[in-house]
């Protein structure tokens, strides 16, 4: 039992979109230094869960609370949650035509610094910082000069999400199916990126369908989500069991 205050705590959370209830009494505590894998069949509410934490305006919270280091974030705007250090790697990263990746990263990084440390950085240092981060996860420099996700392949988009994560250096990162649609090489590259980012001060939530990502990134806990709640929690062996047997055998209690 971890007695420290969790980085993120979800309490009895019920949420809906267009009057359909998606999350039903969801409970989860995430401490720093932990990697939580969330698995579950399609439509179980995993992506909704990630968007609600990031503050997507389309969802209505019916009950419960989300606490970041003990404080409710339900009334915070998405950008205020981002300033706190909550990062969401999107399942389907968005294209912004005409905006270069570098310009986007520079502005994102400088707004983050401005919000947290009230610090202005000069653009030369920012460029140096971003190039270094790109290098640390084996991203070629040319990546920075392309337009944000425009014309990127599926794998490139996912790698770009990891680059944004390491640049913004959040306290907790929620990765929504970052491994989907990747070939083995790309999977290794992004796993390397995630592992470089992870340390005992950080926390990660991995939403995934496959055990193979967990071969590279060792989860502290594996949760199974179904019908908007967590129905089983275990360790890595649970993921292996799921890979063999599917989800049907788990009974909701």
């Amino acid at each position, binding site marked *: 039992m971890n007695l420290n205050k969790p980085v993120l705590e979800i309490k009895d959370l019920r949420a809906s979109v267009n009057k359909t209830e998606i999350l039903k009494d969801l409970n989860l505590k995430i401490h720093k230094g932990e990697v939580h894998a969330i698995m579950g069949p399609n439509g179980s509410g995993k992506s909704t869960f990630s968007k609600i934490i990031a503050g997507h305006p389309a969802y209505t919270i019916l009950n419960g609370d989300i606490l970041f280091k003990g404080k409710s974030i339900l009334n915070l705007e998405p*950008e205020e*949650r*981002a300033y706190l250090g909550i990062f969401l790697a999107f399942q389907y*990263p*968005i294209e912004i035509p005409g905006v270069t990746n570098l310009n986007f990263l520079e502005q*994102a990084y400088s707004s983050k610094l401005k919000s947290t440390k009230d610090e202005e950085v000069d653009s030369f240092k920012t460029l140096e910082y971003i190039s270094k981060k790109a290098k640390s996860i084996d991203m070629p420099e040319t990546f920075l000069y392309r*337009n944000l996700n425009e014309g990127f392949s599926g794998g490139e988009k996912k790698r770009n999400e990891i680059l944004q994560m390491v640049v913004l250096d959040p306290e907790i990162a929620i990765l929504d199916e970052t491994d989907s649609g990747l070939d083995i090489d790309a999977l290794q590259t992004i796993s390397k990126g995630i592992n470089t980012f992870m340390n005992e001060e950080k926390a990660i939530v991995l939403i995934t369908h496959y055990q193979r990502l967990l071969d590279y990134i060792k989860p502290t806990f594996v949760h199974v989500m179904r019908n908007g709640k967590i129905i089983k929690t275990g360790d890595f062996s649970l993921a292996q069991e799921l890979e063999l047997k599917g989800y049907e055998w788990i009974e909701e209690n």
Partner: protein
Amino acid sequence: MTEEVVRIISKKKNEPEFLLNFRLKAYEKWKKMKCPKWAQLNFPEIDFQDVIYYSAPKQIEKLNDINEVDPELLNVFEKLGIPLTEQKRLTNVAVDAVFDSVSIATTFQKELQEYGVLFCPISEAIQKYPELIKKYLGTVVSIGDNYFSALNSAVFTDGSFCYIPKNTKCPLELSTYFRINEQKSGQFERTLIIAEENSQVSYLEGCTAPKYDENQLHAAIVEIIALENAIIKYSTVQNWYSGDEKGKGGVYNFVTKRGLCAGNNSKISWTQVETGSGITWKYPSCLLVGNNSQGEFYSVSLTNNYQQTDTGSKMIHIGKNTRSRIVSKGISTGNSKNTYRGFVSVNNKALGARNYSQCDSLLIGDTSNANTFPYIFVQNSTAKVEHEASASTIDEEQIFYLLQRCFSLEKAVAMIISGFCSEVYEKLPAEFSVEADFLLSLKLEGSIG
């Protein structure tokens, strides 16, 4: 507005007779014409008797040295970010500053003369280079071309003149800053640019006006002429006063801009960023007469509150293998109206002509309005003409993505819009593309909710 006014203006400027006759002929034409009504614009009838046709700042005698200029005037330009004083000049831009109707200062004139480049107020050119004026004035936009061109031809007071001699690449960016200061004054400036064979020039105009409750009239003419192998790039950042949030006040910006690609292989490129004016009505155009000549038009037009814009381009293909390209980006928000109107015509002799037009509209909020009216006339079967158009809104998922990446809502919208316009910004001289981007985000401030 009478013949007398026209004579007074001409006399005050001590003009040669050919110019007085030019003006009088224009006045006669104008008297017989009516203000056209075909644009998607609503405005009350203009009382042309109530307009001040000639307004000069207190100091009118021509100065030789910038240091003699009234320091208060210099201050105004300084605040606008247009440095005219020796110490603070932009290092690679020569500036002609036109205040109300009079040019108050032109920088780097001497340096340019070493290259044979003439850059001065048109009133000065009329005195110093009457042959050039006589040869080219009114040849691209004829006196009776339209109602406002006739008016301008009768009463124009000043503007910029520039002449690039043969085989010369103008070593500096040339630019003119226009400002309307008098409350009731009309501004009728006239710009004439001539690029001789194998020459090149990049020219930029900037426009500002302070806030007044009354509408000011701006009816300018720009004529540019490119001879064989010449390249002219003409950029505009227009920020006339656009009226308040209820639509009161604002400049009526009714401008005729036209370029003539007279020589073979010549090229004229228009780039405009239009953010100001209560009403904008203009179509920078290219007459592609020389074989293999090229015309380009890149435009960003932003309308907010009750602004109305009817803008676009005309590309008239006359020579063989002429090419043209139109890229228009319209952004409308508030209760504004933003209209693209374009005309592409391919003559029966313009064999192998090609045109590509792209018009994208971005709508913000649900009370703004965007229209696209492309007119295409093709008279020979070897021509290729393409037109693409799109209308979109800002995607909520794009906004959420940027918010999640630490952008504020305003910054997120500014970034999406900046991306939307990037193709046009790239065509502006580097110093001004940053300025244009900044201007657009300023204009959008407070309009996003």
